[in-house]
Each structure stands twice: as structure tokens, then as C-alpha cells.
């Protein structure tokens, strides 16, 4: 009885020593931390960030999008707003400020405005899958920092043009 207890205590002490050995080895081993501003992780290319519009092959600043509005309907959180020009009615002369209405608009084949409210987006990819024209895709931009909520209303057309320019 007493001896078995002493034996238990000794095996317990041994297990503690083994534990110290494990942490001791880790102490001497190399760090695994990536120290962020100086170095970056190598897995950013597989990250799927906020969606972006895909440009046409021949004209990278023109979106493939045909403003059908399917992506906006597929979105679970209503974060896509697609507006397109309301075409002028027959006989009217289209002058002055053009009006925009929610896509799809009959006769309008390009988006006039394509807004992603990233503060609502859950990156589920339903819009990307819904698009029949492969006009949307994920970006792999993980850096999305702002102190201003409005900055997360991304104008995807402007971003497409900026990408095409750079």
C-alpha cells in the first residue's frame, strides 16, 4: 500500500521531468512565428478575399459583367448592389444626367455601378458560383483595414479600372 504510493509518486515525478524535457527541447528549437511586418506568410495566394470583377480579355478595364443581377439575388446577405443605365425610351433624347436602376434593366448590357458592401459579405462565394459569365472572382487581398465604415463599400468597377491601369 505505502510502497505502491511511493512508486506512484516517483513515476509522477518522472512524468514531470519528461514534461520539462519536452518544453526544454522546444526552448532550444527554432521559433515558428512569422514576424509580420518584416516577413509575410507564403499562403496569401490561396486566400479568397472580397470578390472582384473580371475584365474582358481584349479590354481589361471593361467588365465581362452583363448586369443581369443574378449575383445580387444569390447573395445571402444582400451585399451586392448592381445598377445599370435605364435606356432612353423611344423618341426621347438621352441628355442630361443619366438615370440608373437596379439591374437587370431591359436593354442594358453593362453595369453602371457595381457596389460590394464588404462589411456585410461573408465570403461564401454564392455570387461567384451564380455568375453564368464568369465575370466575378475572388481577389486574394487580405489587407482590408480602415477606421471608416464607408471604406468598405467597394466600388468594384473603379477597382477593376485601377487594376487594369496598374
Amino acid at each position: 500500500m505505502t510502497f505502491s504510493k511511493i512508486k506512484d509518486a516517483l513515476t509522477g515525478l518522472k512524468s514531470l521531468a519528461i514534461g520539462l524535457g519536452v518544453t526544454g527541447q522546444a526552448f532550444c528549437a527554432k521559433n515558428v512565428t512569422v514576424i509580420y511586418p518584416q516577413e509575410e506568410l507564403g499562403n496569401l495566394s490561396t486566400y479568397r478575399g472580397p470578390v472582384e470583377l473580371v475584365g474582358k480579355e481584349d479590354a481589361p478595364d471593361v467588365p465581362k459583367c452583363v448586369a443581369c443581377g443574378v449575383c445580387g439575388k444569390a447573395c445571402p446577405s444582400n451585399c451586392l448592389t448592381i445598377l445599370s443605365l435605364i435606356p432612353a425610351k423611344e423618341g426621347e433624347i438621352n441628355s442630361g444626367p443619366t438615370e440608373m436602376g437596379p439591374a437587370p434593366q431591359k436593354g442594358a448590357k453593362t453595369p453602371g455601378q457595381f457596389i460590394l458592401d464588404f462589411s456585410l459579405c461573408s465570403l461564401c462565394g454564392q455570387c461567384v458560383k451564380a455568375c453564368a459569365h464568369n465575370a466575378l472572382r475572388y481577389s486574394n487581398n487580405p489587407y482590408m483595414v480602415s477606421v471608416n465604415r464607408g471604406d468598405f463599400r467597394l466600388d468594384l468597377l473603379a477597382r477593376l479600372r485601377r487594376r487594369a491601369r496598374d
Partner: protein
Amino acid sequence: MNAFHLLLAHPAVRLVLWLVLMFAFIGLNVLVLVWVERKVAGYVQMRPGPLHVGPQGLLQPVADAIKLMGKQLVTPAAGDKVLFWAAPLLAFAPVTVCFLPMPFDPRFNPLPMNLGLVLILAFSGLGVVSLCLAGWGSNSKWGLLGAARAVAQSVAYEVPLLLSVMAVAICAGSLDLYAIAGHQGTWPWQWYGMRNPLAFFIFLVCAVAETNRAPFDLPEAESELTAGFHTEYSGMGFGIFFMAEYANMVIVSGVAAVLFLGGFQGPFLQGVWWFILKIYCILFFIIWLRWTFPRVRFDQLLNISWKWLTPLALLDLALAVVVAGLRA
């Protein structure tokens, strides 16, 4: 010149000077120790630890201290204000006194004290009063549980601690730390830690428990009692407890270095650096323990003391008495 020497010769003046010096010494060590703790924790966990404030994050503790000082001090509305604020002061005050009899160097003994060991043990026992007051004064249930744990734990571990110290004191035949350190030889096998390893082991375990360090950090067990006795403290109130914990670590490591590792003794170049080196070796070990083990349960903690350490320490003391008696 002469007047200055005369002034220095006065024990009261020397006491005050030495106290101030020790206070500075402790403050410096606490800062270094906080950095060491975080660095060791980092390396044990395969990460670099503090890195950006100062070279290798050396100034991180200073930044922490400044942050703590800038924080608002909150007193619980239903708490006892006097006890609540007396507690942190009481936690830190005895620490300085405990350093007075430490033998730093054989050639330098500013305050000869023949009962230095008793002084340290007496004043370090005061620490638990502050924990008790902190828990009670904050009128918080977590604090109260922490305080109750602190008292029971302190009482339980004081006994084997004293017994293991006694064994060494009997071997050395003195309670003066200079004498005890001087009594040991220059080589490691002449140190009491090697001659009486059981007492050393018991002392180390008790030291960890007395300073409330993991795996015996039950009074402040964060995953059980949120923060135990210092749950309600903010800013420097917490900061002082934090510093007192590290200062207590330095003290028990110092005592262990003197009693069991020969203090300033070393194979060559005897002096204060040996003492500091030994203190930091023991501190490293205590920190290493913390970042390795889970926390014990409270009844297990008391069982370890009363059922294992106390009988073992008694046995060890008896053996030490017999050996000392045979020698004499």
C-alpha cells in the same frame, strides 16, 4: 572625509542606505525578470516573445509599467477601502527588508546580522497577510476564495519550508547567511544542495508554492478564480502585486542560492556574480516549471504538503541532526 566615514559607521545610516540600495536592486531585477519570464515563455512556446520595444524587447517591462501607471485606479464600491489599498503596500514592503541580510559578496558585509535567516522567514511570512487583506477588502467572491486559498496554502507550505531550512542551518551551525554561505566549499559537491538534495528539493517545491507560482498558483488561478485575490485591482494596484510576486521570487531564489548552492562561492573568481548567476538559474527553473505544467487542484496541493513534504522534511531534519551530532 572623516565625517563621512563616521556617518557611514553608524548602523542606522547604513541600514537606510542599504534599504534604498536594495529597493533599487529589487526594482531592477523585477524589470529584468519580467522580461526574462516573457522571453522564456516565448521560446518555450516556439515564438520570440517581446521583440519590438527596445533591443530584443528589453524595454517591454518599462512600457508595461508606464501603461499600468496610466490606468485608472478603481476601488470596489462595497469594498473596504483601507484594507483594499493597504494590501498592495503590505505586499511590497517586507520584500525590501528580506534583502537586507543577503550575502552578496564575502568581502562586503554592510549590516552584520547573526539571525538573518530568521529575519527573512519572518518577513516573508507577512506576504500572505496582504493577500488575505486584498481578497477580503475587495468584497468580491472570487477574491475571497483566492484569499482563503492563499492562507491555507501559505500555512501548509511554511511548515516543510522551515523544516528544510532548519536542516541546513543545523549543518552549518549558524543562522547568519554569510556564515552559511561561507561554510560551504567552492566546488559544487561541497554545497548543501548536493550534500542534502532532499532538503533542496523540498525547499524548491515550497518556494514555488510560497510565491504562488504555477503549478501552485491557486490563489490567483485564472481559469478558476478569474484572478483570485487581485481580481478587483486595476492599474498599479495590480502592478504592485505583480512586482511583489517577482520580488518574492528573487528572494526565495536568493535564499536557495545561499543555503543550497553556496551563495557567492564558486570554483574561481568568487564574488557577487556567482550569487546573481545562481539566483537566475533558479529563477529560470521556476519559470520553466510554470510554462510546462498544468495547475494542481487545491486538495491535491494541500496533500502534497501535509502528506509528503512535511513528513519528508521531518525525516530529513532528523537525519541532519544525527549527522551534525556525529560530526560534533
